[in-house]
């Protein structure tokens, strides 16, 4: 679609939507949000880009092949569960540690965050894989 307005708007919207998706991702730990919806938001941002320009440009700008992102996301999920198996607890048990960050105090990090990151990546990969190929069929 060759629309000047859409293209201009997307240039502004894309980074904002991506920031928003990271916010959703981090918020998701204790409040509504999380990897799944954050992944959808990020995928929506890139889909918008693909609509405004075309999927070839979007693929180039996205840099990562969606298939690889799916696989990496699933590997991250596997790893997040296996950390607890290897440390002698049952699969997917949450393991936490705190990371002192200057200026922010202690930040709690744990395997559930890693799990969520895997979901985030997989959702982006799947959605964009579908959106890009659908658009290519249309072309």
């Amino acid at each position, binding site marked *: 679609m060759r629309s000047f307005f859409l293209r201009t708007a997307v240039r502004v919207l894309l980074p904002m939507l991506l920031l928003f998706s990271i916010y959703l991702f981090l918020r998701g730990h204790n409040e509504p949000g999380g990897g799944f919806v954050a992944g959808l938001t990020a995928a929506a941002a890139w889909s918008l880009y693909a609509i405004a320009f075309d999927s070839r440009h979007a693929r180039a700008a996205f840099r990562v092949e969606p298939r690889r992102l799916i*696989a990496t996301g699933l590997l991250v999920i596997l790893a997040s569960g296996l950390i607890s198996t290897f440390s002698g607890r049952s699969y997917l048990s949450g393991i936490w540690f705190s990371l002192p960050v200057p200026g922010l105090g202690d930040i709690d990090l744990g395997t559930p965050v890693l799990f969520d990151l895997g979901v985030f990546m997989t959702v982006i990969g799947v959605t964009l894989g579908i959106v890009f190929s659908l658009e290519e069929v249309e072309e």
Partner: protein
Amino acid sequence: MSRWLVAPILIPMLTGVLCLLAVRRPRLNRWISVTGAALELAAAVALLAAVRSQGTLVLQVGGWPAPFGITLVADLLSAFLLAAACLLAFTLSIYSLASIGAQLESFAYHTLYHFLIMGVSGAFLTGDLFNLYVWFEVMLMASFVLMALGGERGQMEGAIKYVTLNLLASAFFLAALGILYGLVGTLNLADLAVKIGGVTERQPQGMLMAVALLLLVAFGIKSAVFPLFFWLPASYHTPPAAVSALFSGLLTKVGVYSLIRVFTILFVQNPDLTHNLILWISIPTMVTGVLGAVAQNQFRRVLSFHIISQIGYMILGLGLFTPLGLAGAIYFTAHNMIAKTNLFLVSGVVERLQGSQWLSRLGGLYVTQPLLAGLFLVPALSLAGLPPLSGFFAKLSLIQASFDARQYLAGGVAVAVSLFTLLSMMKLWNEAFWKPRAEDAPADAELPDRARWLVPIALLSLVTLAMGLGANWFYSLALDAGHQLMNPNNYILAVMGGQP
């Protein structure tokens, strides 16, 4: 050990993901696939050994205790069937190298293959009805794509029937789960088994029986029992041989497993109704399957109808609801998974050699491929129930169990159906191997990767022989599993007994 109960689910997942990453590098992709399948087989065998020596193993995923979290359970039934399934997965992963072309491989065939195995393992290991539903869906997703992969016309037609019927079954399954959750407030199998007794005291049994019958219909469609089997012969012969072999060995058997599981731990209050119904379903299932097969003239369609007939034997054992009957059903299921899949593998080789599945256009393979002909006879005669092969002992134990339970009709039908099975196996033998080929037919095609085609068939034939010659060991395993199923207290204790 129970910490590693999750391994049979994770290994295929990891393999599938690595195959996805390596999809552009065919050689590496194939190596990953076969290695992953071998590891999976090793894990399943180790699990069977552990369950045999230590009893039922339980893992509460994430450390959440039983009725709240996700529970994985391996008792003898699950472990035995899982080992059989993983054996198939391993041999088929080798066979796929020859049978599946480079084009389908580039569509991530290996990834889908291993995700299907993951779904099957999950279904065997889960201790929770809702998770069983989820694993069914994982399995079906992968199978939908595998069935349609390649996109030939006949394949699409088969795939649509397959998808529609299976979605319908899933809807029944989900509806049953909703009602059950509303009645009892839990879907953990062990917890349900404890609480379901309380429900029958408070309420009329009507609702509970409704749930039982809904589940019977849902699993009945998935395992293709009479009169819900029609989707199976309409679709199973359409995809490539490796895929139909995989489906014939695994998918319907997961349905049978679910029937056995649900009707031994949950719905045992009214066996006069439920188990008698299953018994009466099993008789026409055996008969229609075998009669349907007699009428068919395509190699794989004959085999597809036989799947139905043999599902009848499996649920016959469940319908008897005695330890002997269940043992027979379990032994029969394992035997059938291996022998039937093997026949599908042979059909794939025959199709590659002579370019057709129509029996009238085949012939003469006994002369040109004596090894293949010999390998065909092992599973074929085993399926027909000739000693000393596994099918003989499987049928013997089921027939004996029927007579012990005074179900003379069912036992008699099982004997008669065996004869018809022999008839159809002889038909396949005569048409494809024995009769001379039509004179105007083109010469047999080459078989370039001979080992990849024949080693899996030989391996499965050996297992069929071993299950017959070592029937004592396998049967005592099945009998232990049958006793375990008739006394669900161990299962319940293992799950609810306050383990971490």
